[in-house]
């Protein structure tokens, strides 16, 4: 019996090993090996210099600006995106017969080439852009929205525009999995709308909300592509995110700084994921008991 179970494991182990081998070879091992760059003074004829690169980073204006803007951007855009996509999912589901058309509309930004949407937004928010043309009616002074202190807001808008659709799709599937009877029972008991949302919808959506959070986090780094196409390597201060810093370090072959920055970011991400997992474990325990 035991022998049989052992033999049974061979195939799944092989299945895992293929993926694991690629994962280690293309991501994990080079990532760990690259650590050596971060403790050398230069990548070519490097001498060990300890934590000097890390120390220098925390005094680097650009790195600090990147960290600050990235943190702000995520703190605003991730929760906003989650809330808006939940609203969109609830409303779109109400449109029973037409819900497919509406959800397609929200998914369309995913299919538009980044360059195309960047071009559109640039001409919309630019100094001679359509937004200013519209505001001119109210005699509002022309400004370049990307260059102004509203730059961050523009970035959030573009991010939301692009990513509400996919999260909405996730929420629609989550809402669809809640048995209709729960709501009917609540109706019979005369429960109010808010009560139903808090005690049924919110509770049963908790697991998928975590998935949405993780996916939003992944996608929040990708808004860089549009910003980069619009404003290039040296954007206005308010748009300078961590990815700009890393990208510029990569292009200027400054691997020591690049790798130090990536290690710092990775630590932050690990902490974030640990928090998410803790929170989920706690909430799902509350759900079951």
């Amino acid at each position, binding site marked *: 019996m035991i022998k049989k179970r052992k033999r049974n494991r061979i195939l799944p182990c092989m299945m*895992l090993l293929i993926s694991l081998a690629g*994962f280690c070879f293309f991501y994990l091992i080079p990532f760990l090996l690259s650590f050596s760059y971060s403790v050398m003074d230069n990548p070519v004829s490097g001498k060990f210099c300890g934590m000097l690169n890390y120390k220098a980073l925390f005094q680097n204006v650009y790195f600090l600006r990147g960290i600050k803007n990235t943190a702000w951007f995520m703190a605003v855009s991730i929760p906003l995106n989650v809330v808006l996509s939940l609203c969109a999912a609830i409303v779109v589901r109400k449109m029973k017969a037409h819900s497919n058309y509406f959800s397609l509309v929200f998914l369309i930004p995913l299919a538009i080439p980044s360059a195309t949407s960047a071009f559109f937004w640039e001409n919309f928010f630019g100094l*001679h852009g359509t937004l200013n043309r519209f505001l001119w009616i109210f005699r509002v002074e022309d400004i370049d929205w990307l260059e102004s202190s509203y730059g961050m807001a523009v970035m959030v808008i573009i991010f939301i525009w692009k990513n509400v659709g*996919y999260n909405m*799709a996730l929420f629609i599937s989550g809402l669809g999995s809640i048995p209709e009877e729960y709501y009917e029972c609540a109706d019979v008991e005369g429960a109010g709308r808010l009560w139903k949302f808090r005690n049924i919808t919110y509770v049963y959506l908790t697991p998928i909300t975590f998935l949405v959070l993780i996916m939003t986090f992944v996608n929040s780094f990708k808004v860089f592509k549009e910003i980069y196409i619009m404003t290039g390597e040296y954007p206005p201060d308010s748009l300078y995110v961590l990815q700009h810093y890393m990208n510029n370090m990569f292009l200027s072959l400054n691997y020591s700084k690049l790798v130090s920055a990536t290690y710092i970011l990775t630590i932050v991400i690990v902490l974030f994921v640990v928090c998410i997992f803790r929170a989920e474990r706690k909430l799902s325990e509350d759900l079951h008991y």
Partner: protein
Amino acid sequence: MGVRQKGNKMKKVRAMKRKVLYVLLIVMAVVYMMPLIITFTNSFMGSSEVENNYSTGSLGADEYVDMDVVPKKATLSQYASLLFDSPVYLHMFWNSVKLVAPIVLGQILVSAPAAYAFTVLRFRGKEGLFFLYIIVMLLPLQVTLMPNYIVADWMGITDSCLAIILPGIFNPLGVFLLRQFMKSMPDAYIEAAMVDGAGHGRIFLWVVLPMVKHGIAAVAMLTLLDYWNLVDQAVIFIQDSEAQPLSVFLAKINSGELGIAFAGSCFYALPVLLVLLYGQEYLKNGIAITGLKG
């Protein structure tokens, strides 16, 4: 009678509310589609009209870009020059296909079995290993670019689309999403098949795969959408401009041939739009409804 009247009134209010919601949603939809609408209609403008509308160089204060919805004179000239005047664009389109197809296919072939293994195997450190997958999945492109470059250097493929394809195939996203999906599948199915004497190979192929086919479609779509629009990796790993995917060319339109930019965008977006149109059901159903933890 009073109750009935009240009921009617409520029905009316509800219908009214519904209409308002409908209108609001339609307005939102139009706003949402604006970039697509503009791109589509402007692709029928002649190239001189496009240059006229969008060149900002000569604009003074209180003069604006003309983001017109309707072309002054509709013409197919953009499409004609895109498709017939020079083979470059079609060639670049084909480059995109050659780059993305192996990634999507490989991603599925690698992640589906791995997700299955994560579901059925029990070993110490499994959750820790999966945690590593999640971390790498969350790292932004700018972080993984350096490891990718190091490996490409080892393999001597720094100037080749293989440097994009191979890491793309092993991107942990597929394993993550498919494992979430397999978790939501009742264990009883696998156990029953085992009791009947089926091995893992048969269980995977005949029990699990049919159940997660929507999830697989969803992962394929997400991978496609992501890599179809790739820009950064191609700029770094493909030096030969002839071998670039069309997405890179589109990213350069701002400085170059604005005249055919819109037709190029439509042309490039069409395949993914079709995939979305026919596959949005998979995106909605092919998603785990369970949480992160097993």
